[in-house]
């Protein structure tokens, strides 16, 4: 499989999977990126902000609020996301190349 310039969506060919599987794959890939983003972002929060974050995650508000909160509190939050997408993309591309999928 030629993985050059393909993003995670294309690498996993999510649109060519059965709906449920595609949805699951999307969730898992996004979770990997988000995990990596959190690992980098949370240590950047002040003690006070970390407490606020903990309140959010244990509260009743929706998960969407997390992104708003982090983008406000973490410097260059979107840059972190972009970088982590790149890291995962490369990792996936390497593994796909190694696994010789499609050959």
């Amino acid at each position, binding site marked *: 499989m030629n993985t050059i310039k393909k*993003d*995670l*969506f*294309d690498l*996993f*060919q*999510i*649109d*060519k*999977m*059965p*709906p*449920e*599987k*595609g*949805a699951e*794959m*999307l*969730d*898992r*890939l*996004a*979770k*990997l*990126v*988000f*995990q990596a983003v*959190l*690992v980098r972002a*949370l*240590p950047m929060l002040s003690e006070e902000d*970390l407490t606020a*974050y903990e309140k*959010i*995650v*244990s509260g*009743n508000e*929706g*998960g*969407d609020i*997390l*992104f*708003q909160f*982090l*983008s*406000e509190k973490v410097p260059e939050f*979107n840059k972190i*996301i*972009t970088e982590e*997408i*790149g890291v*995962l*993309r490369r*990792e*996936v591309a390497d*593994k*796909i190349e190694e*696994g010789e*999928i*499609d050959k």
Partner: protein
Amino acid sequence: MENLDKKDKGIEKNHEKQDGVTPKVKKIMGKNVETVLKLNSMLRRERVDTIKVGDSGPVNEENSDNYREKDHEDFQKRRARELGNPINKLYRLKNMNNNFETENERKEEVSEVDPFEEAKKGIKDFIDERVDKVKKGYEEKDAEKDKVEELINEETKDVDIQQESTPPLISPEKIKKLEKILESIEEQRDLELVIGSLSSKIKNGVISGLDKWENFGKGEEGVKGFAKRFTKMAVNLALIGVISSISVEKLAEAGIGTATALSGGVTSYLGRKMAIGLGIGGAMELGGKKIPDKVKKWIPVALGVAGVGAAIVFSGGLAGVLAGVSAGTGYAASKLIKGKFTNEQITKREEEAKQKFSERIGEGETFSVKEIEKEYIKILKKYENQKIWGKLLDGATKLGVGALVSAVSMEASGLARDFSQHQLIIDKVIEKETISPEPKIEVKPEEVTIPVIPQHINVEAIADHGQGAISTLRELQHNLKEEYGDNLENAPESVRHILNTDAHKLAQEYGMYKPGQDAESAFIKSGSSFRVDESGNVTYHEVNGKDITLEKGTENTASTSYEGKMADTDNSGGMIKDDINEYKLPEQIDPITGEPIIQVEQTDLTGDKYKLPPQIDPVTGESMVQEEIINNDGNVNIQDHINLSSEELGQVHAVYTENINHIFPTEKLMGTWDHIKNNISAERLMEINKEGGVIDTYKPLVSYMDKLKEISGIHPITKIPLISEAESIPNYINRALQKVAEMGQLEKVKL
């Protein structure tokens, strides 16, 4: 002056009483009000006249002379011809009207072209004016729409949307391979998280954040749940880099605005990817109900053609995003619905409704002015709403996902606040789950039923083999999952809460787990239980104690906190016996023969003398990798000769298996065990724990290892470069269990 104003208002009020029309309606009707009222007046007179003709009912004195002027017989014939034809009826009214007018009025009428035609026109103008007003209002708010639509039309003119939406599927084998790749990365990342240098607070923060996101929109009914799942899908797409033109937090903030983000123009790079709408949209559920196939086909189109880029460029904000939704769905509609819900079609139906109403009048049904006004307002409102919807979707149906997107975008933009019925309409739409060629839009609020929590059977989890609160709550989650499956539509709030919350967190909420305190865990007596009763109330029943209602069925949060006895189960508050030389390493016993496997001398630190005897996997009974027998201080542990019979070894085996199953009760958690047992040494895990870096998932395991260490006195083997590898967790547990068994204390370490 003020008095004069009051007087004017008084006069107005009197007029209102006379003609039965409210000032609000007059304001809407504007100059046409007089003509409409005249028509009403005619209708009133006609009714009286009909009564006079048809039977011997009361005679209106005022008009009796006029009536006598007509030939009774001719009139009856004419009437028979005219019945059922509203237009003829109106002409008949006109003729009658001429007879009823006083001399002065007649003069006035003569000066006008045709009073009847004017009245008719007045109604039409009144209707058109109202519709135009609504249309105009929307158009003003959506000023950029046309530009966006034009751009999208230009971009998409040569594209076959349906073809784009149904890419060929890849083989199951290939999917499996891709899944395997994903799995290996997940394992690696999890491991990095667990053994990384982050504090446990941060690690738990990461896990909690992921849980929060994972549960976003899960199991939620109706439009809100659907919108959340859509939002999640869009943010997820952004998180993997598919959507880069809009930031993740903007997507999250916009909510259904993300439906736009899911788009991007069919010909664009993003647009092509949005074929996923077909799949993922289809996989999502509306209020627990699967979207029917034909509606599924709508999703990629409804979402896939709106131009987020264009919308953002034009307006840079949510309004633009929403305009994009509207334009996109409009385009979709024009392709698929083919004008079924165009303004023309709606107007046609509106005319039919008005015609029908006129026929009712023609058939002799009587209406007061108020009733006529009410009926007309009803007709207007109904088709006005249709036109608003139609406008939003630019001719698309109200039934199906397109309407849903639009409805939520209206909600998001505040446009929908004027149309309080829209939510009800959507609910009805969801109920119908199909596209009907002639949808009935009118929904009475009283028809909407409030879901009632049905009665459920008791679901219980009993701590009957020494589990703690967390493990028992996990068991409760497992039992509830079996009872409810994935469909939480009718589940009580409490059940949803339990199923969507991590057991550790749940125990914390119930006050049964207080990390950071010396006595951190609730003391659970064997036989105590958690129970969710028929109404969803969550109770903790303590053996020989009283029941505590922890959560009510209608709530999604703990209502009462456990205040009973707490215990220090992880030894965090006590001294862990650390005399590492007190116990010597046990000899490894062959579980089959019961004989020692290898005798090891401990004389110096060189050569192979310090190699561990072959480790026996307590589960498989097979040899494991050789390891060194060296303690934390780098000193050699002198092995004990443990004399365990085959039966005793069997008991060790059973305790080992049961305890691991207990610590990792679910398949998912067992996966984490499989992962950690091969990748982290026992020593390292315990070190991380001392540093406060172990995440909640592994805390029960570490507590168990600490307990084994305390009772057996056996420490994990240390890694010494070039000499030994660190001891794996299963090896360590096995050794320690054997020692404990030899000491006759196996019961003490059963979980």
